């Protein structure tokens, strides 16, 4: 019979790499814990003798606490392989030896592969392999699996261990008088169940029973050991009462004592100070400094996003309103469709609507680039610690940080991310708060309006919107925690942070490409459909003169609906029908606010329509525009640290922005900037987009969805009212 060899080890210890070399199989090796969920098998030979080898999913111990671990622990207890090769990451010896101890207690014959041996010198580790082998009484082989080093030795060690053909003697740890007394009684009670012998050494099986291992419990149930199970439960309770801690904690304590004893005799470390990553962490996750540092980082991110990318926004805008519009018109002329409603649909609907949003692709690109750099460097994980503390301090469940941070990207996945919370109350509370986080779709609106009214302080205004969203979420959370959704007991949380590292260009590029590509896809689908919808409503006359696509926009169906809504918005300083119409269309998707504004304010035709210099001239215009934008972008980089070589107003003085400015000045009685700010606050806070509402209904039901629709509208109206009317009272704007 072919001896069975199992490769076991903690996640990321290098099991799969070692398996690949051992069995010659080709497997993808990644970095995610629990990657090897499937069972991988292979064979290898030593001196003509064949061995069957199985790669097990990573496990930290032999009590299964996850689906992946169940596969590993179930296999070991069921199949009882001839030899277990336990792969131990030499830089995490304590963790690896804790697993080695349990496999030894289970009476399985082991070969220990001390993997990643190449880091020993680099990290100042000292490990005496001979001494370790002697203490463990099993073969120990240093390996560097990714380079194939030590694999031949592992094969020989496995073959030797198999050839000995001796029963493996289980490791016996003394768990102290209390546990040993109860354990002894259980072992005696198990004598009446001979089938338990087949599961492994009886002492080990009873330890597993005490530790509450579900697989052991099921196995004992299957042999009719109900009385034994009851005795186990009673013993666990008695041990907890006598020693003052849960039995599983007491078992861990003793095993770690054994590990410490082994390490004291075989290893050491050349003393060194804290790593640079730890030093950074002391500041970045500091209770007082963490939050200001986070805010400063976000300020730089938004500064780069809105200021440095601005020249490219102007270039895309000019390209769409100039050459692209001319090509569209020329195409229509070619098929004799110019001059009628089709031209209006293409130019005023599609090009103005979709083009208006596409102009902000450089901004989104900038945001995604900065965030990808932060994510891949490891900083974003630190912000989770900072956010968690801030949330807990005001009574919002600490774990809310994840859905809320996801909400900065998109509200839809943020609402689904609330599934990670345990209690329905926490889920609902966080679900209600996530739409207040500024999703990426709102960014084009912020950049556009902030560019019109606060060109000098555009990035500060955008940052203020992001922060205001957090503040409002916290205030609403506080209010709900004290009223309808009272606070539950918070759960302690330990965070294992990745080390800081240089971001990988490949990862960053992949993230930017994926996210920007998705934004463009949305522009080509949802925004295109919304733009056509808005154009259609603009084309339909209600009252007044004119026919289809030939009516005064104010007299159109869209104008009629927007005028009605404008009455409600009047006290906020933006009661003009164009403004309320843009907000109304934003219910489809927030970017649509920009596309609708483009359609409504530039309805007289694209700016660059006139003055075509032929196709070659258009290409020259696009090329020279790109070069100019790239040069301006380079010159604007020093502006991030306050050195300004480009006037921020240069790139934003388009017809659209002039129209927006005059419209807001008119609707607010000369307080345009104040009304613009109130409009931004309204966009930040008002009813989420339809996709978010659908997700909300799916997760929390129709009643709470309507609460969100109405509640957020009221909060937004109130927020904008305070900004506009309060600002007027204070003589601002």
């Amino acid at each position, binding site marked *: 019979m072919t001896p069975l060899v199992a490769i076991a080890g903690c996640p990321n210890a290098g099991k799969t790499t070692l398996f690949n070399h051992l069995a010659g199989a080709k497997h993808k090796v990644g970095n995610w814990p629990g990657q090897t969920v499937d069972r991988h098998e292979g064979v290898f030979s030593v001196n003509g003798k064949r061995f069957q080898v199985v790669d097990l999913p990573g496990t930290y*111990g032999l009590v299964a606490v996850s689906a992946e671990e169940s596969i590993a622990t179930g296999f070991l207890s069921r199949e009882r392989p001839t030899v277990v090769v336990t792969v131990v990451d030499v830089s995490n010896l304590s963790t690896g030896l804790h697993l080695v101890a349990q496999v030894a207690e289970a009476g399985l014959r082991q070969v220990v592969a001390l993997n990643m041996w190449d880091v020993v010198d680099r990290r100042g580790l000292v490990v005496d392999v001979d001494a370790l082998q002697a203490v463990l009484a099993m073969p120990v082989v240093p390996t560097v699996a990714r380079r194939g080093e030590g694999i031949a030795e592992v094969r020989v060690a496995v073959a030797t261990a198999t050839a000995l053909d001796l029963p493996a003697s289980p490791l016996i740890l003394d768990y102290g008088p209390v546990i040993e007394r109860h354990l002894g009684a259980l072992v005696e009670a198990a004598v009446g169940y001979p089938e338990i012998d087949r599961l492994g050494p009886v002492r080990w099986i009873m330890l597993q029973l005490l530790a509450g291992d579900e697989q052991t419990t099921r196995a004992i149930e299957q042999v009719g050991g109900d009385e034994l199970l009851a005795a186990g439960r009673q013993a666990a309770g008695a041990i907890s009462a006598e020693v003052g801690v849960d039995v599983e904690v007491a078992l861990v304590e003793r095993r770690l004592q054994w590990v410490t004893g082994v390490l004291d005799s075989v290893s050491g470390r050349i003393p060194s100070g804290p790593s640079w990553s730890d030093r950074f962490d002391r500041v970045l996750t500091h209770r007082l400094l963490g939050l200001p540092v986070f805010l400063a980082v976000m300020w730089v991110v938004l500064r780069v996003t809105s200021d440095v990318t601005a020249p490219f926004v102007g270039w895309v805008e000019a390209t769409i309103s100039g050459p692209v519009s001319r090509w569209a018109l020329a195409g229509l002329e070619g098929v004799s469709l110019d001059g009628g409603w089709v031209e209006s649909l293409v130019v005023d609907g599609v090009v103005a609507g979709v083009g208006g949003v596409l102009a902000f692709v450089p901004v989104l690109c900038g945001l*995604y680039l900065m965030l990808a750099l932060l994510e891949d460097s490891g900083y974003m994980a630190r*912000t989770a610690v900072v956010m968690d503390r801030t949330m807990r301090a005001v009574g919002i469940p600490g774990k809310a940080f994840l859905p809320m941070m996801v909400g900065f990207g998109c509200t*839809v996945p943020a609402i689904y991310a609330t599934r990670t919370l345990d209690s329905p109350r926490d889920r609902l509370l966080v679900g209600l708060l996530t739409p207040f986080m500024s999703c990426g779709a709102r960014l084009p609106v912020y950049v556009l309006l902030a560019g019109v009214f606060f060109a000098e302080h555009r990035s500060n205004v955008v940052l203020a919107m992001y922060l205001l969203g957090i503040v409002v979420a916290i205030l609403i959370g506080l209010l709900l925690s004290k009223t309808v959704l009272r606070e539950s007991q918070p759960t302690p949380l330990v965070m294992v942070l990745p080390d800081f590292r240089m971001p990988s260009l490949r990862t960053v590029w992949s993230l930017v490409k994926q996210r920007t590509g998705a934004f463009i896809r949305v522009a080509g689908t949802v925004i295109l459909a919304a733009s056509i919808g808005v154009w259609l409503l603009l084309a339909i006359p209600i009252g007044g003169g004119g026919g289809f696509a030939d009516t005064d926009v104010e007299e159109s169906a869209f104008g009629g609906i927007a005028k009605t809504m404008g009455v409600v918005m009047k006290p906020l300083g933006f009661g003009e029908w164009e403004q309320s119409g843009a907000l109304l269309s934003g219910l489809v*998707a927030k970017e649509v606010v920009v596309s609708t504004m483009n359609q409504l304010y530039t309805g007289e035709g694209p700016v660059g329509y006139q003055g075509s210099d032929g196709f070659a001239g258009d290409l020259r215009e696009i090329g020279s525009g790109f070069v100019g934008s790239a040069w301006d972008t380079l010159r604007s980089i020093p502006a991030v640290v306050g050195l300004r070589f480009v006037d921020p107003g240069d790139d934003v003085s388009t017809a659209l922005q002039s129209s927006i400015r005059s419209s807001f000045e008119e609707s607010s009685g000369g307080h345009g900037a104040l009304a613009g700010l109130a409009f931004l606050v309204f966009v930040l806070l008002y009813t989420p987009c339809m996709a978010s509402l659908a997700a909300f209904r799916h997760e929390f039901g129709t009643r709470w969805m309507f609460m969100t629709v109405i509640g957020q509208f009221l909060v937004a109206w109130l927020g904008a009212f305070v900004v506009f009317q309060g600002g007027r009272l204070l003589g601002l704007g």
Partner: protein
Amino acid sequence: MKVTELLREIQESPGAVTIPELARRLGSTAETVRAMLIALRAAGRLSPEAGARPGAGKCASDASCSVGCPGPAGCPFAIDLGSGLELRAGRGT
């Protein structure tokens, strides 16, 4: 340092706490604290925080992010915490 001291320190922390911070507070090393946490996790006493698992924070599906959102990845702030750990209520500690 004992495992029970570590558990007490975690329980008494006002918010999320990191391994180096726990090590500093307990006068131990990050390696020791990490090994203890992993052993507690292996014993089922600490459970991995669902939201901190790899891939968490991504969109539920392509469809759920296709409307009004920046994209299927959709979550510029999505983070991989590797293995956030959450303390489960115990019987005797």
